[in-house]
C-alpha cells in the first residue's frame, strides 16, 4: 500500500496525472476507435489449467526459437552447390572439393562466433518441435478434444504436423552433407517410383536427373520462407480458433459444456506462459550448447560415390525409413511397365496413415453417434475403445520407428540384423492388435470401476 501512496505523491509532484498503463488505455480509446471493452474482456480470457495443455505451447515456442535461430543461420548460409575447395580452419577437410553450401556450414560451425551454438539449438529445437507436436496430437486424441466445434482445428493441426515434418527434412538437407544427401537420393527414388508420372515428377522437383546442381538452391526458399509462412498462417488460424472457441477443459466441479473455469489471461497465465517460453528456450539452448548434434564435418560433403552406414533420417522420418526397410522387394510388372516395390511403403502407407487421422473426428462421431458440441474432455478411461485404437496406432508407429534404426540397434546391442528385421516384421502385424486388446481390457475395467464407484 505504501508503494502506491509514494507513487501517487511522486506523480503529483512531477505533474503526471495518470499511470502509464492508464494513459495507454486512454490512447487506445482516442486513436484506435474503441475496442476497450473487447480488450478488457480478453484480458480476462479464461484458460483452463492442466499440464497437458502446455504441450501445444512447447511446439509453439520451439517454432519461435526456430525462426529466431533460423534468421541468424540464414545470414551466413550459402544456398549454392558451386564447387569450392575448402581452406578453412577444419584441418581434415582442407583441400577437399565441396559445395559452397557445405563450406558455408563449416565456416558457420568453426569460424562464426556462436555459429555452432545457434546451429545446434536450431536442430535440437526442430527435433523437439516435431516430438511436441506428436505428443500434443496424442493428447488431443486421447482426450477427445477433436470433437465439434474443434474438428477443423484438428485438421489444421494435422496439416501443421505434416508441414513441419517436411520442413525439417528440407532443413537438415540444406548443409549438403553425405548423410542428408543420401536422404535426398532416397527421396528422389521414392518420387520416381510413382506410376506413370514418377520420373517426370522427380525431374521437375529436382531440376533434372539426380544429382542436380540446383537442388539446394531450390530447397532453400521453400525451407526459409514458403513453408514457415504456411506454418505461421495455419498457426494463426489454429490459435485464433482456439481463442474464439476457448480451450477445452477436463471435467471437474463447476465445469460443463457451457462453463469454462480456469485462470485469467492476465496476469497469472501470461506470466506463466512467458516463463514457459523462457524455459523452453533455456532447455533447448542448454542442449544446443552442451550436446553435439549433426556433426556435418565428420560426415563429409555429399558426393554420390561415397556412402556411410548407420544412415538414418532425423527421427521423425524414422517411421518411413522403417517401412522402406521392412517391405520386401515385391516389384510388379504390368506389361512393359514396372511398379517398384518401394511405392507401397513410401507413398501408399503414409496416405493410409494420414487419411484416417484426418478423418478421425468424423469417424469418431459416426462410431459413437455423437456429433454434438463438446467442450469438456473425456479422460482415456471413459472411452476404452478410443484409447485402445490409439494405443494400437502408437505401437504400429513405434515398430516402424524402431525398424528405421535397426542397423544401429543391431550393431550397438550385438544383435543379428536379419533376426531383428524378421522380428520387427512379425511385430508389425502382431504387436498393434495385442497392445490394443490389452489396453481395451485394462481401460474397460477402469471405466466400469469408475462408473460403479464414481471415481
Amino acid at each position, binding site marked *: 500500500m505504501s508503494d502506491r501512496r509514494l507513487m501517487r505523491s511522486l506523480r503529483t509532484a512531477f505533474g503526471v496525472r495518470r499511470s502509464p498503463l492508464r494513459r495507454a488505455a486512454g490512447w487506445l480509446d482516442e486513436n484506435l476507435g474503441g475496442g476497450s471493452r473487447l480488450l478488457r474482456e480478453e484480458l480476462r480470457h479464461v484458460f483452463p489449467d*492442466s499440464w497437458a495443455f502446455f504441450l501445444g505451447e512447447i511446439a509453439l515456442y520451439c517454432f519461435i526459437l526456430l525462426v529466431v535461430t533460423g534468421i541468424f543461420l540464414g545470414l551466413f548460409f550459402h544456398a549454392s552447390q558451386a564447387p569450392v575447395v575448402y581452406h578453412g580452419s577444419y584441418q581434415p577437410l582442407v583441400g577437399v572439393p565441396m559445395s559452397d553450401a557445405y563450406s558455408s556450414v563449416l565456416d558457420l560451425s568453426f569460424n562464426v562466433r556462436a555459429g555452432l551454438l545457434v546451429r545446434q539449438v536450431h536442430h535440437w529445437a526442430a527435433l523437439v518441435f516435431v*516430438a511436441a507436436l506428436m*505428443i500434443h496430437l496424442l493428447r488431443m486424441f486421447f482426450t477427445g478434444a477433436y470433437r465439434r466445434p474443434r474438428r477443423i482445428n484438428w485438421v489444421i493441426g494435422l496439416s501443421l504436423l505434416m508441414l513441419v515434418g517436411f520442413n525439417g527434412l528440407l532443413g537438415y538437407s540444406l548443409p549438403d552433407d553425405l548423410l542428408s544427401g543420401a536422404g535426398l537420393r532416397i527421396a528422389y527414388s521414392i518420387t520416381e517410383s510413382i506410376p506413370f508420372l514418377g520420373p517426370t515428377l522427380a525431374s521437375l522437383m529436382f531440376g533434372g536427373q539426380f544429382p542436380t546442381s540446383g537442388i539446394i538452391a531450390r530447397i532453400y526458399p521453400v525451407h526459409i520462407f514458403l513453408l514457415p509462412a504456411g506454418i505461421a498462417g495455419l498457426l494463426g488460424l489454429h490459435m485464433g480458433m482456439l481463442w474464439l472457441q476457448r480451450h477445452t477443459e477436463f471435467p471437474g466441479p463447476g465445469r460443463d459444456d457451457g462453463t469454462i473455469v480456469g485462470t485469467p489471461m492476465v496476469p497469472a497465465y501470461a506470466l506463466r506462459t512467458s516463463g514457459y517460453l523462457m524455459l523452453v528456450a533455456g*532447455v533447448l539452448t542448454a542442449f544446443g550448447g552442451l550436446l553435439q548434434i549433426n556433426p556435418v564435418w565428420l560426415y*563429409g560433403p555429399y558426393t554420390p560415390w561415397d556412402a556411410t*552406414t548407420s544412415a538414418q533420417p532425423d527421427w521423425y522420418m524414422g517411421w518411413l525409413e522403417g517401412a522402406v526397410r521392412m517391405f520386401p522387394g515385391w516389384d510388379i510388372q504390368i506389361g512393359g511397365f514396372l511398379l517398384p516395390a518401394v511405392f507401397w511403403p513410401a507413398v501408399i502407407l503414409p496416405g493410409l496413415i494420414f487419411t484416417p487421422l484426418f478423418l478421425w473426428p468424423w469417424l469418431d462421431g459416426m462410431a459413437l453417434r455423437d456429433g454434438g458440441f463438446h467442450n469438456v474432455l473425456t479422460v482415456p478411461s471413459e472411452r476404452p475403445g478410443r484409447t485402445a485404437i490409439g494405443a494400437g496406432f502408437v505401437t504400429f508407429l513405434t515398430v516402424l520407428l524402431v525398424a528405421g534404426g535397426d*542397423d544401429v540397434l543391431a550393431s550397438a546391442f550385438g544383435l543379428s540384423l536379419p533376426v531383428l528385421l524378421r522380428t520387427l516384421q512379425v511385430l508389425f502385424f502382431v504387436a498393434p492388435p495385442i497392445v490394443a486388446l490389452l489396453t481395451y481390457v485394462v481401460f474397460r475395467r477402469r471405466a466400469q470401476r469408475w462408473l460403479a464407484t464414481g471415481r
Partner: protein
Amino acid sequence: MAARREGPGVLQMSRSAVHNGERRGRCFCRASGRPRLGPLAQLCVVLVVLFVAAGPAGASPQASPSAALEASASAIPAAEVFAENCSGCHGTKGEGGFGPPLAAAGFASLVAPMVEKGGIQMPSFGGQLSNAQIQGVAEYVAAHIADPASHEAAVADGGEIYRLYCAGCHSTTGRGGALTRGRNAPDIAQYPAAEALAAMMLGRTNMPMFAGNTLDVRQQTAVGLYVGVLVDPPSPGGRGLGYLGPVTEGAVSAIALLILIFLAVWLAWKSRTAAP
C-alpha cells in the same frame, strides 16, 4: 459481492461481476505458506549435472604420448629398440613377416600409440618401453623404415578415400555398423589408428585387402591419418553422444521433451483441490 461458493473450497465469479467493477475472486489459502522446493531444486540439479558433465571445453585429452621427453632418457638408440622388439614380427627392415609390413607407417603419430597400446594382434609395449623409447622408435620407423612415399600423405586425402571405401562399412564416424548376414563392421575408433593400416594390409574376415590392390602406400597412410582423427574426433559442439547419428540424437531429444513436460507439470501444479 456476487461470489458463489461451489464445490470444495473454490470461489467463483461470474463474468458480469467483472463489469460491475466488483471485487475480483479471492482464493482460499494454500495449505502451507511455503513454496514447493522439490521440483525446482531437482531441475537445478539436473541442469547443473548436465552442464558440469559436458565440461566447458568439450575437448578430450590427446591419446598419443606427449612429445616433450627428457633428452637423456634412454641411452639405447631407437634402431636397437626396433631390432629387439619389432623386427621379430615386422622384419629387420620392416618388410613384414608374422606382422604386416611397415611401408605405410610414415608418421610417428601413427606408430607411437600402436606401440604403446597394441592392437588386435600386436602386443602393447607401454609397460616395457619408456615414453621416450616409444617416441624414439616411432620417429625411427617413420623416418627410416617406412616407404618415403608415405610421408606425402595428407589427412584430407585420407578423408576422401575413407569416405569412398571405408565409411560404407565402418561409418563416417568410424563407429562401425551392421553388415548383412548377422555380421558387424567393427568400431575402429576403439583401436589406435595404425590398426587400420594393418587391416588394410592383411584384410580381415569380411574386409578385403586394400593395400597394393586398391590403395598405394601414400593413400594407405593418408587413411591411417584420417582414422587417427576419428579415434578422437573434434567435438566443438559438446558431448559426442556416441557418434551414431540421428538415432541417438532422436532418443536424446525425447529427454528434452520429458524435461519440458516435467516443467509443465511443475508450472501447472496446484496446492488446492482443483480439477486436473
